[in-house]
């Protein structure tokens, strides 16, 4: 597979490490009420659809960017590639 890195252009998937469901960006607050239940879902309830999926990939043999790759897991078509940092900020994560 080729992943079109937002900064570096098309790179072979072999340069990347795969993590999975990009929902991992949404880490709950560990000090909040009911944190254990929230973290249970966060750590164990991962999406794994046959079809369009947002995934985390890490350019380990490259510039160390974490990317959010929107990919069809059936056809392997890659629909969008973004820096995870940008996605995280857009979705409300900061400090």
């Amino acid at each position, binding site marked *: 597979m080729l992943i079109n890195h937002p900064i570096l252009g098309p790179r072979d998937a072999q340069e990347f490490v795969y993590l999975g469901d990009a929902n991992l960006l949404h880490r709950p607050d560990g000090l909040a009420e009911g944190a254990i239940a929230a973290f249970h879902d966060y750590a164990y309830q991962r999406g794994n659809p046959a079809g369009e999926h947002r995934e985390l990939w890490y350019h380990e043999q490259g510039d160390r960017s974490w990317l959010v790759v929107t990919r069809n897991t059936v056809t392997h078509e890659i629909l969008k590639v973004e820096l995870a940092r940008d996605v*995280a900020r857009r979705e409300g*994560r900061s400090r």
Partner: protein
Amino acid sequence: MSQSHRIAGGQIDRGVALRFSFDGKSYTGHPGDTLASALLANGVRLMGRSFKYHRPRGPISAGSEEPNALVELRSGARQEPNTRATVAELFDGLEARSQNRWPSLAFDALAINDRLNSFFTAGFYYKTFMWPAAFWEKVYEPIIRRAAGLGSLSRLEDPDEYDKGFLHCDLLVIGAGPAGLMAALTAGRAGARVILADEDFRMGGRLNAETGEVGGRPGADWAADVVAELAGLPNVRLMARTTVAGAFDHGIFGAVERVSDHLPAPLPGKPRQTLWRIYARRSLLAGGATERPIAFENNDRPGVMLAGALRAYANRWGVAAGDRVVVFTNNEDGLRTATDLQAKGVSVVAVVDSRRGGPLLPGLRHLQGAEVVDSAGRLGLSSVTVRMADGRTEVIPCTALGVSGGWNPNVNIHSHHRSRPVWAEGIAAFAPGADGPAGLAVAGAAAGRLSTHGALLGGQAEALAALGDLGIPATAGDLPKAEDAPVSITPKWYVQGGKGRAWIDQQNDVTVKDVKLAHQENFTSVEHLKRYTTLGMATDQGKTGNVIGLAVMAELTGKPIPETGTTIYRPPYTPVAMGALAGRSRGKEFKPFRLTPSHKWAAEQGAVFVEVGMWLRTQWLPRAGETTWRQSVDREVLATRKSVGICDVTTLGKIDIQGTDAGTFLDRVYANTFSTLAVGKCRYGLMLREDGMVFDDGTTARLAPEEYVMTTTTANAVTVFRHLEFCRQCLWPDLDVQLISTTEAWAQFSVAGPNARRLLEKVVDQDISDAAFPYMGAGNITVCGGLRGRLFRISFSGELAYEIAVPTRYGDALIRKLVEAGEEFGAVVYGTEALGVMRVEKGHVAGNELNGQSSALNMGLGKMVSKKKDSIGMPLSQREGMVAEGGYRLVGVKPVNPADALSAGSHFLPEGAAPVLANDGGWLTSMVWSPHLGHCIALGYLKGGDQKIGTRMRAVNFMNKTDVAVEIVSPHFIDPEGERLRG
């Protein structure tokens, strides 16, 4: 023997004679020959024995689809089994041997299987070797293994090298027949970067095997001219002898180039084969079509061939495979074989045409509405029995039979992403379907366009379309004139009325009868049919037989063929050598080695090294007179505890963490707190995974208010860094914190033991007295009069200890300096074994305890997890099950009888309890022999272990059958109060 079957013409160099041998007998051939064409030229038809029944077999094809003519090539370490004689390029001195026969090809003892064929039907193995179960390993498997397989391995190291390479292009053209050549020419002339790959050693595809003209000249000449023009274009790469084996995602293809298979040995500096990864913006499959036979009784005798192959041997290689030829066809193309052979002066005694009506071939005995129903001849064809249209049968003597059942487009590459081929009624074959790999077009016979004109037109049109997509301007040149004969075919898959021993898959000996049996036993889906009968599971992957098998099944189930469908096509297109897949990654080059800064020095001292991940670390350093590893390790431990020892700890991961939020960041990734750490101090840190289990541990020092340096375990250096980047970029993108791995930047040595400070005082420029550099101190220093370095007062051994770091390039100098400075103290350099002994003596956890399934509480470190702050893993580490009383706790273990040995992996059982799972109390994780204490000691995880200190248990190990009485003790065997550390 002279080349008795050689006739005029062909693309061989008759001026050069190549000597070769087959089963020890010498023959000659010419450059341009394959092993099969040369053997046929010498009148040799019998080339092998079949897999199951050991039936005599000869080639049926002239290409890579060959199921029968599998031979062993070369001898010694280069011996290679199961190579297809039909694609093995002849060279002077080639040695070939038949396989799967004993004692000889002409007389094979296991041919008895053929007489017993009623037992060896489909599913034979499934039905026969079921009972008794105990027989499997001892009786059945050895027998099957001996009888199975075709060729044999030399069991010697392959002396050749294999390479891997990467190529990029605008257009990859797969196949250099008329469609591929026309496409490459169109794209090449337009200036696009083109790769043209063909599995053959001569480009041209079927044009080399046909007599038809292209642009007013023989097709082979036209092909040669196009290849010459392409060779002159700098933007075109011609890759003959290169099989595109698979289509992968996003325009990536795997291709094997047989760089040196046509030579006795690779030329100096050249690999035997190269595995290419080709990145193509657009690609075109122009892989042609493969002819299929019609199955009839005893259709597998040497001499029975595909009609197109018979024609190819005559036209391309100047070989008449037989002197009296019969052709059996259901389509117009089969007639071409008859007329071509007749034109070459070969005696064509009959054309058996299963179709009725239409014009008769002039000057030939053209039997319409007739079928070949049987054949005869012990080791090769001597006659066929023909059933005429009126039902009479006639035995016609002949030495070769050309069979044509139609042509199957080579859809494989197009179907590698699960695109299902679609049935094309006009050619009675499967053609490429929808949803092929993105960017891959198909042209020519592969697309079901079987005429030469159709191929040229399709190749040009698809090249133009691809260039259009890419925005490369191109023009359609003049299309050379070529035949455009329509396909006339009346499907016929097998001849009715025989006993059923009509072969479909000749390599795996699957017959029409086997398909019928599969149907009878309800294995009717094509995927079940395949697995039950082994149809298409041989090295040829059923290129000639699969469609017939599923057509027979369609007939039996009453479903149309399109509905019956095909099995899934998977890479590789033809077999790929393991060596090509391995490339250079074998033996010592299997993976890179990372060497520590002290490696050269240690190697000079005769150190024993151990692989730790990719690192080679010193395991111990034997001295003269030491005969066992234990002597060396015991000495290293005792000398360190008595005076001082030095150990290279460079392999530990080092990560520089800087920024105004560095302390906050560390508080979140470590279970304990680091923002409060004073500058100039370090602290042990425990890192959890989000599921609450311990991930890693190490010490982290604060060198400046906004600068920390973290150490990780050797094993997790990469994964911790990855995790920290995840936290930084994905969880808290606005924290001001930067990370860089400096594992390779610093050479780091541990100096441990009561004399550690005295030794280092001779090397370090600054005051490092206890007052100036207390326990857990850390800071920048200079050594040897000005070289920048770092010093950390930390200890893994439990002794007064430091870790000293200098830039890596000075590591070799520093180890020599430390050893020299330590001479007066009797300093030793110790390896990973002594390191392991001392950490167990001190009760520190390491890899065996940090097993990914243990919590901080399990390790006795539960109090380190701060609940006042949120950190990775903290919430889930507090789950009910994780904090329950009575869970596993780290304990020390010693044998009740000091003479008893302990073994890691033993399970704890109460005294007197039966060794069953219900009584299992935990397990022993790490065991060493403590020279300090004079007996074995161990660490382990024991349920409720914190409440069981002082009690006795048994350590039972079924693997080495030991059962030892042990006492559960504190894991701190040495200096539990830590007085030595602070000395």
